[in-house]
């Protein structure tokens, strides 16, 4: 049985909150997605499924491609963005500017356990659909509001996007290149929105558990700006604890003081990330043997320190800079790891290093990670049926494996209004009234 089987979640469609609905739906909640007439704008975000748009990932083509697709066949544009963020949801259209639409939403909420939304602060209150209104029809409602700056701070009405949230909220300050004339970088993939959604779902689940104990619901106010601020690791606590400011560095932790580079270009033009030395004396010996087996010892005179290190009783970080030999050993290890990486394809380097206990990584693109044998063997790839297509579509799989309450994509993202009649019937709105709601 899924963990959230029997739990109904109403989601007011908004690109910021969509991921939260997916996380709940994929764990078995009955997520009902409410869109405004015309549908949510993210139905028109690239990339698109090919056959509709050509190279639809080129931004210059994106808007014209959508318009062309819609003009040609009145079709929805098959946005892969929409597909991803809206799995395991059913959808209907309600016009909340009309009383019949608002009445339907109240009935829907009365039938549900949780409401998640990212409406501009004040909008729901103006419509008579805020928590104080909705508890009249659903006294134990759990209402999660997630907005850029929360409902109560003086910044609450400021417009924001994923970029501006990550820039103002702290992550961007730590992210970029050693060359500080290059702007700091926003990490890709909507992580500002997704981080907010992680906290929104943790909040919803905490409240659902409490409801199971006490029977009471509540209102929860999530701030995406606050979420970004407390997802910056050392950047915040170096300042909070010691008043120190970290500075960005290519491919490694932003720190108050510069550290040594860790990314190495491997022989096949791909990058590895390194920086962790062997942990034991024999580990240094193993590194020497690996270097030797590749015929690289002649290129690194300092390798002798690694060969000697294997006879030591112990070796520790703390002795670097104190004991000359230990300093030389760690330095030789760094040189050896770099030299080996430059002489091997990255995958071979990664496996070779990990097999002798050296913690390194291969910098994979998303598709390379998706096709990686480790994740494939663990069953990460899942297939989702799209009735309109001949073949099932492969999706990213489970972020966690709960054997007793499995994660699963129960259905592909809804087409606009796909479950209109079904859902309205469930909440007792008869056929004659249904045309009034949107």
């Amino acid at each position, binding site marked *: 049985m899924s963990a959230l089987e029997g739990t109904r979640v109403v989601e007011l469609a908004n690109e910021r909150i969509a991921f939260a609905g997916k996380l709940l739906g994929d764990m078995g909640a009955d997520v009902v997605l409410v869109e405004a007439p015309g549908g949510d704008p993210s139905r028109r975000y690239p990339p698109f499924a090919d056959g509709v748009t050509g190279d639809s990932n080129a931004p210059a083509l994106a808007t014209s491609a959508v318009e062309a697709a819609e003009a040609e066949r009145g079709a929805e544009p098959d946005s892969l963005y929409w597909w991803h963020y809206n799995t395991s949801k059913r959808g209907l259209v309600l016009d909340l500017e009309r009383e019949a639409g608002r009445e339907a939403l109240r009935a829907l909420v009365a039938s549900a356990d949780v409401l998640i939304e990212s409406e501009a602060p004040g909008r729901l209150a103006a419509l008579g659909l805020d928590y104080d209104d909705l508890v009249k029809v659903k006294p134990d409602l759990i209402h999660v509001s997630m907005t850029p700056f929360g409902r109560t701070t003086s910044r609450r009405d400021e417009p924001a996007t994923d970029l501006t949230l990550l820039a103002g909220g702290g992550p961007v300050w730590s992210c970029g290149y050693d060359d500080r004339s290059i702007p*700091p970088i926003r*990490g890709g993939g909507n992580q500002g929105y997704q981080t907010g959604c992680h*906290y929104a779902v943790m909040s919803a689940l905490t409240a659902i558990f409490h409801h*199971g104990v006490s029977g009471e619901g*509540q209102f929860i106010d999530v701030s995406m700006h606050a979420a970004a601020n407390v997802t910056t690791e050392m950047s915040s606590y170096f*300042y909070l604890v010691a008043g120190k400011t970290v500075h960005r560095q290519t491919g490694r932790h932003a720190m108050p003081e510069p550290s040594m580079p860790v990314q190495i270009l491997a022989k096949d033009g791909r990058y590895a990330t390194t920086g962790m030395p062997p942990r034991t004396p024999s580990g240094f010996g193993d590194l020497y043997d690996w270097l030797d087996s590749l015929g690289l010892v002649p290129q690194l005179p300092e390798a002798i320190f690694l060969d000697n290190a294997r006879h030591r009783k112990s070796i520790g970080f703390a002795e670097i800079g104190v004991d000359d030999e230990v300093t030389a050993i760690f330095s030789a290890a760094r040189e050896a790891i770099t030299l080996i990486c430059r002489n091997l394809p990255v995958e071979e380097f990664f496996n070779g290093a990990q097999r002798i206990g050296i*913690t*390194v990584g291969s910098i994979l693109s*998303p598709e390379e990670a998706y096709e990686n044998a480790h994740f494939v063997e663990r069953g990460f790839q899942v297939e989702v049926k799209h009735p309109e297509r001949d073949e099932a579509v492969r999706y990213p799989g489970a972020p966690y*494996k709960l054997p007793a309450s499995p994660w699963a994509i129960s259905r592909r993202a809804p087409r606009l209004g796909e479950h209109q009649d079904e859902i309205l019937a469930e909440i007792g709105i008869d056929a004659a009234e249904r045309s009034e709601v949107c």
Partner: protein
Amino acid sequence: MAGATANANRNGMRPPDGTALGTVRICDFTGQLAGAGATKWLAAFGAEVIRVEDPVNQGMWDVLRNYDPFVDDRRGPDFGGGFNNHNVEKKGITLNLRTERGKEILREIVKRSDVVSENFAAGVLDKWGFGWEALRELREDILYVSNCGFGHTGPYGRYKTWGPIVQAMSGLTFTSGLPDSEPAGWGYSYMDHTGGMYMALAILFGLIHKQRTGEGQWIDLSCSEAGLTLNGPAILDWTVNARPMRRPDRPEGNRSASPPMAPHGIFACRGDDEWISIACRSDADWAVLATVIGESWASEARWKTLAGRLEGQDALEAKLTAWTETQDKFSVQRRIVEAGVPSAAVQRPAERIDDDPGTSEWGLWPEVEHSKMGRVRVDGLPAHFSKTEWKIERGGPCVGEHTDEVLSDLLGYDADEIARLHQEGIV
């Protein structure tokens, strides 16, 4: 502690106390951020989180116990600033699991716990005799949540990781950077934070399942798998269109292809390493921004449509930078935001922590009382609950700080017995 509560504790149950998770007890082996971050959330909402640590190495499996930053010159396992940040509101006990008596005490704690959580390398807890089968024998409905870089099975099951490796292997490092350049990466352990969030989610899903069915389970969490779910549209572009992210012009730096926006980027401002982010979501946003800029180039027809701005993006960004770089970042931010267009200065830690009403009015930096460090500010939580609000007041536990309390209140040991356990080095 009141006698009735202590008795209830000895039966393994925590009575409801008005907090969200007050009925939950967690036997916690987590450390660093990827694990400790998860139980921080649960402790702040009232769960009793008992950290079990090794007395022989003074809990230093979690290296953050004695790692920068420090409040002053004192060093040692009770002074790490990061450890304090991630372990507020938790209890800490020491238990020597090399000894049979130590294992016996752990069994007693597990019998009284709802959850056992850990983020050791795969297989470590099993080696100590506390793998899934053993835990289940102690308590049939136990929820066991393990969290490691690659999960416990699969070809990389024995490989070691930390945040930056997880980010590299899951595609996150690759997607952060300028096109056709070395990856910039995240600049911190984004996946230690986010891995901790997925661990918290997994524990909460498991607790809800248990509340509803009475069933426990073993949740095997792989941080890199969690990371791999965070670039969904890019993966679908690959599986549906066979279009890889490793191609010219990707990743996109600070530009935005999905949804397409221009200008969309981070631009230099007056001063050293000062920057402003600006995102025009629509032609209307651009029209507003053009008015704020108020220079003749901004009103040219070529910029009026998204297609025009995307086509001339290099030139547009150069013009925009020429406008921003003479100005103070916060004054640019104020003017653009007041006009209704998204913009935010790239804030330094001091700016967002000390001078930003978006965090101070939220109460985002609570000050805790740490038994040795004194009063220290920490990360708070980004959600406020109307009925069961979080509480972050007590600092992270010193090594063994709550050993006696847990032995006496939870297990009912008397003072003599506790003294003996200390003498024998069990605790």
